[in-house]
């Protein structure tokens, strides 16, 4: 069953056709990888779906609901959350506060002005449990800016995950980290996301990571979809090999 659908979605920046008439479908429960060379239009597509950018034309649906012109918070309420390519944290807040804030936002508690945040036992417990799931349990009191890069990436995902979305977009969750950290991050993210029954779309460049963790792979090239299918099929696709890997099958 499709959770998200776009119809003929377009976004052009002058002469550059970043997203050029894309029909994209995400099915419930899948772990999907969106791949492509730099400038293929992956991040732009996610930006359009998450309301970071407005499309030039086309439509976006969550289930049957048209969210093409919905605001960011309307889309979050519709179940869409995202992380960013560059780590985007609340650097001067503690690791615990970063996640707790996400939970407060989800619960509609951020307007509480005359209550101590730390006294909300339910939120604190959930945040600590979540941090433990992401392997950051021992770092809850540290400031976000003091974490190592791999930990920051995990916290970035945890903050988005804490919104408990139906559909989670992760923009290059392993960029800028060592090969060892990559595997650790993807093991954790994949296990938590699948365990939580959340549908995930991951933008990723590392094809080993893509083939290992994905249920389905969508390949973009120059603003359009080049291929769409299970990892094994994509691995054998000659167009993908030519444009993405620079080799012949």
């Amino acid at each position, binding site marked *: 069953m499709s959770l998200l659908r776009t119809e003929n979605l377009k976004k052009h920046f002058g002469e550059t056709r970043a997203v050029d008439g894309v029909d994209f479908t995400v099915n419930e429960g899948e772990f999907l990888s969106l791949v492509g060379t730099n400038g293929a239009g992956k991040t732009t597509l996610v930006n359009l779906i*998450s309301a*970071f950018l407005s499309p030039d034309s086309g439509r976006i649906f969550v289930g049957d609901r048209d969210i093409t012109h919905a605001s*960011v*918070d309307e889309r*979050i*309420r519709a179940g869409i*959350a*995202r992380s*960013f390519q560059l780590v*985007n*944290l*609340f*650097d*001067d*807040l503690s690791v615990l*506060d970063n996640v*707790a*804030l*996400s939970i*407060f*936002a*989800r619960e509609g*508690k*951020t*307007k*509480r*002005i*005359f*209550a*101590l*945040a*730390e006294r*909300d036992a339910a939120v604190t417990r959930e945040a600590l449990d979540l941090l433990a799931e992401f392997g950051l349990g021992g770092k809850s009191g540290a400031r976000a800016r003091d974490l190592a890069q791999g930990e920051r990436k995990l916290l970035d995902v945890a*903050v*988005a995950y804490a*919104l408990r979305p139906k559909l989670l977009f992760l923009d290059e969750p392993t960029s800028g980290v060592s090969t060892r950290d990559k595997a650790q991050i993807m093991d954790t993210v994949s296990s938590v996301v699948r365990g939580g029954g959340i549908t995930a779309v991951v933008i990723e460049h590392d094809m080993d990571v893509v083939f290992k963790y994905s249920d389905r792979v969508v390949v973009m090239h120059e603003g359009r979809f080049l291929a769409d299918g299970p990892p094994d099929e994509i691995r054998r696709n000659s167009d993908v090999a030519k444009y993405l890997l620079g080799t012949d099958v």
Partner: protein
Amino acid sequence: MSRRAAALVAGVVIVLALVPVVLGTYQTQLLTYGLTLAIAALGFNLLLGYTGLLSFGHSAFLGTGAYTVALMMRYLGVSSLELFILGGVVSSAALAALLGVVCVRHTRIFFAILTLALSQVLWTLAYKFFWITGGTDGLRVPFSQLTLLGGLINFPGADAFARFITYYYYYVLVLFCVCTALMWLIVNSPFGKTLQAIRDNETRARFLGVRIWRYRWLAFLVSGIFTGLAGILWVPLNGLVTPDVLYWPQSGKIVFFAVLGGFRNFAGPIVGAVIFNYLEVYAVAVTQYWQITLGVILIVLVTFLPAGIVGTAERLRARLKKKRAEQFS
């Protein structure tokens, strides 16, 4: 709050409560000024330290609070400080609500300039509507016409000044403690954490579903109310309100409080306001070039102590603690 911090706060409150007994009328009066300004600094820092918005127009709220008291006394014959507080808080809140709608859609230099410009509009109005505001002569707010606690305490007679200062000090001290506790609660609430999140990373906060303008507007409102309250409490002490209270150097002084004490910690602006008050009074007494003295202090602060007095003390304490822990291990 840790036990150690709670003990420190209790100690400070006890010392403050002993000031009129130990230090005499003049020092008590000076500290009363310091505490009223500290309330303004608390309000100001909700915007600068916790929301990341630098206002150069907080004199507008200080002046609105002060002028509300003077106008109520002059035209409505009110003498109760509790009614002044009620009227002043309502007028400051109304002004903050209105200015906030215009200002919070902008950040950084644009926000600072807008707040500055709007406060200057109020300053001009106070000048031009002299038949209401008294123009440069201002409006008098004599303490002898003031009553506290619903008329239970008043100040008639020739020797009333010392008594006024003592009673008024305790009145301000209680309000200062209430405001400090309230602000501490606010900055540690989910709302306060959301403001800090907006300060650190507006984009990410937006993608958690936080409506940025709404939160900034609420912070602006609370900040304006605190600063308005400071203006209300300041004017009976000063005895007179003139357009100077609305002029931009007054806003600059409030910024100075935060920089002096350190705006990235809770106590910094409070300490900054109290110390600035003493600095200004003694610099004026010692030299006619007192503004140069304050300017040099500001330059030294920004250059060598960017974290302010409290911020630097905290850093030193953390460094010492780390050194001790290393020696111990």
